[in-house]
């Protein structure tokens, strides 16, 4: 079922040969930033969120501090072991709910605040999410302040049993407490949005000289309509105005555009071409079949976005919360993720749960290795990144919000003391880690959600 078994006419035509499905970068490429200037490389942040928790006994590494041994689930991370932090004992206190085991542990994964129980009108995540806070600070210098990706369509319907709209189960990025950021799930659309005009051999979109006058005018429109509207309507229109402004900002800033074009080095261009073909092939042969390749495409787009500095902030959801993705494509697994996560301590179920957990870490390891293969300054792109992996609950069988499975990859611009396995006192706020990352990014905030302060021992 993998791509490599398929005959690829397009690839042959392009003269690239029938190479393996996942073109790993053999060489170390120089980076856009280096090519452009000698200024300090920017920080990047991504969060890869997985639903349904992990097998609790196969997660924690054997020893503490830097000579730790990777656990069965974390074993795919061996190539980058010296650039990860495995962090045990953290909890997201505000995700405890008497009503529900999943939604309240998803929507607030990056806000660490309690969410409002509602089926629609009062959707509220309690706060801005970590990624969006970062985007407000370091995202504005790039074409796309932040990216939101995922593998599955957001689940529709409301969960009447627990009294939540499923929106909560499909959103970790919140621009404001009341405004979730939508996710892109189609590799082609995500890729084209960023790189459409830079793919070798592809016709760029025609220029649109009047776009600015159109946008200016609709903004004026909205402002004059505002006066005739009720309060809630004005809020809606405020959303509209913000959205138009965001689109206009990208247009307004020719420097951004020119900068971006300059950042597309020949190496990136080559990679864009390769990605373009891979996405076509996936769409043609493997869409709806090969979820691993889809995950890797989305991850590669994030890597390219970081590499070309199209964006510095991204979130990625492996699935919606309560996802019952059928993982039978993995050897030894039969059934859906959520059902298996309720393993009832049956060893047969737990073995499968472990395999599924490892699959998630494999994709994460793929991202870290890709970032680590790209040179930036005197180190690699991974050195200037913080790539968070986590789930909002530890063990799906118990919906426990304590001792969450959390890994932080990358050196955060050499601001983090990485390559360690740490175990914090039970009930240490997850938000303390967020404060640590904000500190590493030189973003000054008094506090974040229930944080009691950054982990100074992790900071250089």
């Amino acid at each position: 079922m993998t791509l490599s078994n398929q005959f690829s006419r397009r690839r042959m035509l392009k003269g690239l040969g029938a190479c393996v499905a996942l073109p790993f970068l053999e060489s170390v490429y120089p980076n856009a930033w280096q090519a452009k200037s000698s200024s300090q490389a920017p920080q990047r942040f991504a969060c890869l969120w997985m639903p349904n928790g992990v097998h609790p006994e196969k997660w924690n590494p054997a020893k503490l501090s830097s000579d730790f041994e990777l656990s069965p689930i974390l074993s795919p991370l061996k190539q980058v072991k010296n650039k990860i932090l495995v962090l045990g004992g953290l909890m997201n206190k505000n995700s405890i709910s008497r009503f529900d085991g999943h939604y309240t542990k998803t929507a607030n994964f990056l806000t660490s605040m309690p969410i409002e129980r509602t089926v629609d009108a009062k959707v509220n995540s309690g706060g801005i999410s970590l990624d969006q806070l970062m985007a407000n600070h370091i995202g504005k210098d790039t074409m796309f302040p932040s990216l939101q990706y995922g593998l599955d369509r957001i689940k529709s319907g409301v969960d009447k049993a627990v009294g939540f709209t499923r929106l909560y189960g499909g959103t970790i990025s919140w621009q404001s407490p009341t405004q979730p950021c939508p996710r892109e799930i189609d590799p082609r659309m995500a890729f084209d949005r960023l790189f459409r005009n830079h793919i070798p051999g592809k016709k760029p979109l025609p220029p649109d000289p009047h776009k600015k006058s159109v946008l200016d005018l609709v903004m004026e429109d909205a402002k004059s309509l505002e006066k005739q509207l009720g309060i809630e309507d004005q809020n809606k229109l405020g959303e509209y105005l913000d959205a138009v402004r965001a689109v206009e900002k990208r247009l307004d800033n020719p420097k951004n555009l020119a900068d971006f074009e300059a950042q597309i080095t020949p190496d990136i261009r080559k990679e864009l071409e390769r990605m373009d073909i891979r996405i076509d092939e996936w769409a043609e042969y493997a869409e709806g079949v090969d979820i691993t390749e889809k995950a890797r495409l989305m991850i590669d787009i994030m890597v390219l976005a970081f590499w070309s500095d199209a964006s510095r902030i991204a979130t990625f959801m492996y699935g919606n919360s309560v996802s019952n993705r059928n993982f039978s494509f993995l050897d030894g697994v039969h059934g859906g993720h959520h059902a298996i996560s309720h393993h009832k301590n049956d060893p047969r179920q737990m073995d499968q749960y472990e395999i599924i957990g490892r699959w998630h870490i494999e994709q994460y390891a793929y991202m870290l290795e890709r970032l680590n293969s790209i040179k930036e300054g005197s180190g690699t792109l991974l050195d200037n990144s913080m790539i968070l992996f986590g789930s909002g609950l530890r063990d799906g069988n118990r919906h426990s919000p304590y001792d969450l499975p959390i890994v932080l990859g990358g050196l955060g611009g050499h601001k983090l003391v990485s390559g360690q396995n740490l175990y914090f006192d039970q009930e240490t706020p997850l938000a303390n880690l967020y404060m640590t990352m904000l500190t590493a990014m030189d973003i000054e905030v008094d506090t974040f959600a229930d944080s009691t302060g950054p982990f100074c021992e992790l900071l250089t």
Partner: protein
Amino acid sequence: MRSNFLIRTASMILLGLLPVFISADTKDDLEFRRTVRSLLRKHCTSCHNEADKKAGVNLDRFDFVVHVIRSGELFQKVVEVVEKNKMPPPTNPPMSQADKDTMLAGILKILEKALAKPDPGPTIMRRLSHREYRYTIKDLLGVEFDALKYFPAEASGGEGFDNQTGVLYMTPLLMERYYLAADSVLTQVRNNPALWQQLAPRSYRAGPLRHFTNWWKGKISDRKVYWRKPVNIAEDIILPFANKAYRRFLSIDEEQELMSLFENIYFEEWRKKDGFEIAILTVFKKIMVSPSFLFRMEANLPINDPYPVNNFELASRMSYLLWSSMPDQHLLDAAYRENLHDPKVLRREVLRMIKDTKFDRFSENFAPQWLGVQDLIFSSKTDQEKFPEFTTSLRMAMYTEVVEYFRYIFTQGNLLQLIDSDFGLLNKELATHYGVSGIEGTDFQKVDLKESNRGGVLGMGAVLVSTSLPERTSPVLRGQWVMEQILGESVPPPPPDVPELEAAKDQVHDELDLRSLLELHRQPSSCMPCHKKMDPLGFGLENYDAIGRWREFYGTVPIDSRGELEDGVVFNGPEELKEVLLSDKEKFAENFSRKLLSYALGRGVEFLDSHTIRDLTNQLIENNFNGPELMVALVNSYPFRHRRSDLADRYKDNKL
């Protein structure tokens, strides 16, 4: 002396304030506390208190009548369970008849008083849902646009529909896509001569004389050239289009704004061969990303009481309900010439619109979302290895069956046939899957199901697959589905941090017989009350496997699809289960009315809608479950034709 004065002054001030505090208590509040609250404390709050919150309910937090009204739905539930002796539970001392009467009368009095003055509820401007966008584009421009794929997927709200205000956000990503969508749609139209001709019957191109004149003007002045003719032609193209797109007449200012945009662009581009078209298309693009197009906006009048929406607003409400799209010319004419609030006009228009083929869209949008099968169209979670028969085309056929059958029943049948009927609409593939022979072709056709195990939504593949796990059936999920989608009863969530039983059942499903499964569910006492309700309903459908095929055995173990409900009613298999469901027609009628009202208003149904729901339910029963009649009643209902300003809320809040 001085300190005495201070004390006296202070106490006078405090005494002066006292009436303010007291005045917060109305006579109703005092009566409520004396009667209802004391009885709640006597009989209910030992379990339903802040700490225990049994079933998620806390009845120990009500001191004021306004708070009771705010939680009106909860108190309606209290009335229901006390009336039917479901509460207090048998484990607690029973309520005396006198206590019961006092409590219920007290609650009902408060609720009825609150409902006496009709309230249409909050109306917030609604962004077009992706489906509505798609159809509006189709009706406005005549082209197909796959909005569901092109725009980022959205969640649902209210009763589970994607057209609910609360979840229709506007984001930078979506705005970006709206702009590109307008571009791509307009390019499609421009490249289709027939469509373009309809939209822009005339064009203009500057002739040699005009070129010369402008050249000469350019010699003597730096001013941008301007002449009237192209503007006049453009006006006849732009303004009618804008009126249609905004679904109302434009204000003079808005007209001028659009025309000056045209002028700015045209007098810059006039030398180009298609300068006129470029300018027209740009103005169209502007219209298509304007708030007046993307949102359904209604005027907010600065008055306290609810007021009827204007004719054009009502026309849009009707067309988005019935067609998921903008009003057609006929409806706009009616809105212009007649009074749409007139029940006769309204009825005529609703019935006309139901006859239109565009009414298919209502079935397409409403039915799958109501039944919770909408995700089937995008993906499948069914295990392909275990069920290779479950092909994409079969999945699509199942989806189509739901839509086609619903449409047929709504327009030509009796809505109770959604639960049970002796015919279905099938194509060959689906009929074969169901074990019904003699059907040919890919078209869906009316099929006699008297001799089969099908008929009604409970036997439909789409429903049976959507309520199954990847590899096997789940009686719990199916039971929950029947309760929520058909009967409109919500099932409380499993107690916190107790593992769901689904997984336990998973392991034994194929190995144990049904009785043992049932027993398994009843073991933990905290799970029992709900599973006792859900599971029997689901077991009644066990003869359908995870992809909806009929079966009599699990391997070699015969299937026992008997079920016993809480009230002692016993049934065996889907046919008898359907009879049980049909025995309480009112419940289904109420649930269906509720779903439809939520879909129509774009918001969750609230306490203040109680009378509307009651009226629709009664109407449905009286008219023998006739779809079009229900639709007429719904469109005629108070909240559908009225709105209220929320500016008043602001003043109220300030005062408090």
